[in-house]
């Protein structure tokens, strides 16, 4: 198997890898995203660059992925979703990504268009994530597009997929992951999860179905009480553990802003360091840290479990 990216190299070498997340928004200068990418350098091997998260119409993730790599040297995991593009547009963007030196792509079905700020737009879904994975593999392995037309030049991409250990019934999710692996997925990143026992259950079920794919488990550190509360109440299917929520709720009463920040950082580290230590004992290939707007947690977190 050919290796095109640092992410895949690290995974193949058996290192416990960390990936980060960058969320470019409705903007044209990418100032904050570039700054965040700079801050994460050296702590994560690559960063996901989100593609219209929650179906908000933001700057192109392809352009953002390129500029992040170009300006900061941070390797991008280019997220590409099926909500907004048909198979032809997906092909064009993937070819463009190759030309721009992007080497990792996360093939996503994508949130429904009705969830975001373009709710009246047409949801496309010409392909789904499994079919997109299948198409990318054809491009990479055979040098042809979906319909067998020859591509001039190498297609050098690693394809990742999403998985959700919170899903109930879990077996439905495991079988879906099996299908993505069958289609040729090379790594998976999971939805945010706080329950390490559920993570273990997820791996156990993967094992029982003979599914082999490196999995990076997703975590979401909680920058403030507001973020924690929003996350707990509005991110469907994900619940912040009660004890963690209680501690963060208490910390919000600290009047000194700096002290409050330090306290919340400490609470997060108290929760996530043991979580990561436990995670390292599972089959997890790594951890995907979704700390958008909270890059300062990544150095102490990753250093603690080196």
């Amino acid at each position: 198997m050919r290796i095109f990216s640092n992410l895949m190299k690290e995974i193949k070498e058996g290192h416990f890898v960390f990936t980060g997340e960058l969320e470019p928004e409705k903007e044209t200068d990418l100032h904050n995203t570039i700054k965040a990418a700079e801050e994460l350098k050296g702590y994560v091997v690559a960063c996901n660059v989100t593609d219209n998260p929650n179906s908000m119409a933001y700057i192109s993730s392809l352009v953002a992925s390129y500029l992040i790599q170009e300006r900061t040297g941070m390797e991008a995991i280019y997220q590409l979703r099926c909500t907004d593009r048909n198979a032809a547009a997906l092909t064009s963007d993937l070819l463009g990504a190759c030309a721009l030196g992007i080497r990792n792509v996360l093939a996503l079905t994508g949130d429904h268009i009705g969830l975001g700020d373009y709710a009246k737009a047409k949801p496309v879904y010409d392909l789904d994530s499994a079919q997109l994975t299948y198409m990318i593999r054809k491009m990479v392995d055979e040098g042809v597009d979906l319909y067998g037309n020859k591509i001039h030049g190498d297609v050098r991409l690693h394809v990742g997929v999403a998985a959700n250990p919170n899903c109930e019934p879990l077996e439905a999710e495991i079988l879906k992951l099996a299908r993505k692996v069958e289609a040729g997925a090379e790594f998976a990143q999971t939805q945010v999860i706080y329950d390490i026992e559920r993570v273990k259950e997820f791996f156990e079920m993967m094992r029982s179905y003979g599914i082999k794919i490196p999995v990076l488990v997703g975590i979401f550190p909680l920058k403030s009480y507001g973020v924690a509360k929003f996350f707990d109440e509005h991110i469907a299917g994900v619940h912040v553990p009660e004890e963690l929520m209680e501690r963060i709720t208490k910390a919000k009463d600290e009047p000194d802003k700096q002290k409050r920040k330090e306290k919340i950082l400490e609470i997060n580290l108290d929760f996530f360091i043991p979580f990561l230590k436990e995670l390292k004992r599972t089959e997890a290939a790594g951890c995907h840290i979704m700390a958008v707007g909270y890059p300062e947690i990544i150095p102490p977190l990753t250093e603690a479990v080196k």
Partner: protein
Amino acid sequence: MIVTKEKPIDEILEYVEPYGKILVVGCEGCTHPPRGLREARNMAMTVSMGLKLRGKSVEVRSTSIAKQCDLYNCKVALEPQIGDAEAILTMACSIGVGALSTLFPDIPVFPAQNTVFMGVEDRESDTFKEMCRACGDCLLGETFGICPIARCAKSLLNGPCGGPVDGMCEYKEYTNKCAWIEIYERAKKFNRLDLFKKLRLPRDRRLETPPRMLVGGELK
């Protein structure tokens, strides 16, 4: 059945206002809720009164025929009743509007309905549910009677997306059950998870791209 929803009366009045003689035509076909003779009569009265309120006195007649989607049927049943009608307002689904426009090219035909979907009726809960999108390549043989094209908000072919929570779909705020979770449950019950986990390749979208025709049994 074809499920329709009546258009707002002001929209209907806007359509027919320029004409002095209007024929309202019901359809005794599959349109639901029923849009037959009784509904056509009520519509004729409403249009007549509505236009009167707008200061116009018009002649509004009503009738009804079986299945406006059948051109032969329309010709035989409706042609003798057209008389001097200047405009037709049909109670049928949009197919009826198209059929009557084809058959009577010299008379403008207007819809009284918005055609919403093909579905089933649950009388107990007064609910109509979309069941089919006429994709041209029926998958129901692999999905135990639940159409993922019609019942999944993303029309996915390869299982649930990451969206369902407790088996409910992310679209429309978790008020609908995820079609793929339902398919999973049925597949499991029938011991046919092989069908659930099957990798389905991209569809040939030409099968569902309009305008479609079936000519001598061949889809064109």
